């Protein structure tokens, strides 16, 4: 057998491609970590399962180290692996850091929720690490197939995590809805990819023979147009853009709250990562196709998300619609990615928005988890009089809601400002119309964010129970990280503004040079 393989190898004159081990160190650490966590979990007594959460956190922090060292070593020159199909550049590193950080905060948030509920812990963290691995791979993928594999690697564990409360029919329903919609989206996307492959003969995004060079406005065939539209529609499901959003509120409400936080931040950011990679590298010259499509998606997403959020009485459901509408704001600059003036600032705006959105939305969910441990309710009215008995949580909630609404000097304001700036840089009539729609939506969204704040500060405590809340220390740590992040970005925007200045990704796009 071995002789046969080696003779086959000799025949094909095959040698393994050179591998830059440092460049893929974050992925390798995650892979090793997944196996270690799984093995340790097998041999751990039930009473010691809490250690798995700590271990998972350590794995994420360890994977963070090579991200930092790579960032210091990179110096503007991207490191390419596997024929340029897996690239580590500043853009990829910023997003990898974001995914690992979000993963760490979600571990902090889920620890007590899983323990209190008596749910399986070891398997949960293994699945979460798998999902994070998929996201980290997504940031570097520069090939249709590796984008597909990364997307599935991050989604499939998510289907199981949504249905994690096995005995709750609501959680099962959340899981099955997420699963059916997610796989439907993968099917559409894959069909689009097969057409793109057939029309161009390649699956690579960049390079002279890549999709980016071959797909140009004016010479697009029917197959190519269908391919682009289907691929983008597939990712529109992932980021729950209207009209592909129907799964999101149900899944968010039914899934365990830390998982909801994970979906609404990490999965969504991964979907946007793929969209950015595709729009800037694979379709930069096909803006006649994706421009109008993303314009309509962005306008619909922010408007419908906002209008439906107005009438929600459940806080998680309200945050679900709020995250749909925030997705519209993140999508908005991408519609002008192909514009000579707006392209650079569009990339900047999306990356900055994703970073800020991660902090403020995770924070809001952390407050919800902390409060509902006491009130056992998801209704907005259960937050009544929160300031009277948990002033710390009330202030934190104020920070997150105000930031989501876009009030200076918080992070959300800077993110929204950047998004508007990118759209206005395009300087066309359609851009001004989109900016006006977004401005109206900012005002609408303030209504439901401030309704929560009024409940927190003004209303009476609904059941008169004013025993103080003592959140467990992991949740306090999560709150600390997210509050500091939200405020720091708003007060000192240059902290992240440089991250968005991703010359090397933009540099590969001739149009944006």
């Amino acid at each position: 057998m071995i002789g046969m393989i080696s003779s086959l190898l000799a025949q094909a004159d095959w040698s393994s491609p050179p591998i830059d081990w440092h460049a893929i160190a974050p992925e390798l650490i995650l892979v090793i970590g997944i196996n270690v966590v799984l093995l340790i979990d097998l041999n751990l007594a039930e009473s010691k399962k809490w250690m798995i959460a700590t271990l998972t956190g350590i794995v994420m922090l360890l994977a963070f180290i090579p991200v930092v060292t790579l960032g210091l070593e990179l110096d503007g020159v991207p490191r390419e692996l596997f024929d340029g199909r897996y690239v580590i550049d500043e853009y990829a590193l910023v997003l990898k850091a974001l995914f690992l950080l979000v993963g760490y905060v979600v571990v902090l948030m889920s620890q007590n929720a899983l323990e209190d509920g008596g749910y399986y812990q070891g398997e949960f963290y293994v699945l979460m690490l798998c999902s994070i691995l998929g996201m980290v791979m997504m940031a570097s993928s520069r090939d249709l197939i590796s984008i597909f594999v990364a997307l599935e690697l991050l989604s499939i564990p998510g289907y199981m995590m949504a249905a994690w409360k096995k005995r709750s029919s609501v959680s099962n329903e959340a899981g099955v809805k997420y699963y059916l919609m997610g796989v439907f989206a993968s099917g559409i996307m894959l069909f689009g990819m097969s057409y793109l492959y057939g029309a161009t003969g390649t699956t690579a995004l960049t390079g002279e023979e890549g999709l980016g060079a071959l797909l140009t406005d004016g010479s697009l065939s029917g197959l190519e147009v269908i391919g682009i539209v289907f691929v983008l529609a597939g990712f529109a499901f992932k980021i729950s853009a209207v009209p592909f959003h129907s799964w999101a509120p149900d899944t968010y409400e039914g899934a365990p709250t830390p998982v909801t936080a994970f979906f609404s931040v990490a999965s969504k950011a991964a979907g946007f990562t793929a969209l950015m990679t595709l729009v800037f590298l694979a379709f930069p010259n096909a803006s006649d196709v994706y421009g109008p499509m993303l314009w309509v998606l962005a306008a619909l997403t922010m408007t419908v998300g906002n209008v439906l959020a107005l009438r929600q009485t459940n806080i998680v459901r309200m945050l679900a619609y709020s995250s749909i509408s925030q997705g519209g704001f993140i999508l908005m600059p991408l519609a002008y990615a192909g514009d000579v003036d707006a392209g650079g600032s569009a990339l900047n705006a999306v990356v900055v928005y994703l970073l800020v959105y991660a902090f403020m939305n995770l924070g809001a969910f952390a407050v919800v988890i902390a409060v509902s441990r006491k009130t056992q309710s998801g209704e907005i009215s259960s937050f009544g009089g929160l300031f009277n008995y948990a002033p710390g949580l009330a202030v934190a909630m104020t920070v997150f809601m105000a930031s989501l609404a876009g009030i200076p000097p918080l992070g959300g304001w800077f993110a929204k400002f950047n998004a508007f700036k990118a759209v206005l840089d395009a300087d066309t009539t359609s851009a001004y119309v989109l900016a006006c729609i977004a401005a109206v939506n900012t005002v609408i969204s303030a209504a439901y964010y401030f309704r929560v704040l009024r409940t927190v500060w003004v209303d009476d405590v609904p059941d008169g129970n004013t025993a103080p809340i003592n959140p467990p220390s992991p949740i306090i740590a999560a709150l600390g990280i997210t509050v500091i992040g939200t405020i720091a970005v708003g007060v000192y925007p240059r902290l992240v503004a440089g991250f968005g200045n991703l010359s090397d990704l933009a540099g590969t796009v001739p149009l944006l040079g």
Partner: protein
Amino acid sequence: MIAAIEPSWYLIVASLLFAIGAFGLLVRNNPLVMFMCIELMLNAANLTFVALATSLGDINGQTAVFFVLVVAAAEVVVGLGILVSILRRRPGATADDLAELKG
């Protein structure tokens, strides 16, 4: 004399399969049938990949199919797992029964 099979015939079959899968997913309400519809959609993409790889004389499309097959298998395992846990609680549940969450 039998006419040679053109690559375009495969594409037509594949797009029909895809349309049947997508349509079935939207109109049927038995979760198991919905799973099968999803498989049809994924395999339509596979057929397109293989047909186009053959007509292009390029191996990349055929390797893509292997990835898709593995991913589809993983998806089915997870999907059936979730479905079994639902049907254990509520035998004979249809997609319409899964409507506790709305608004």
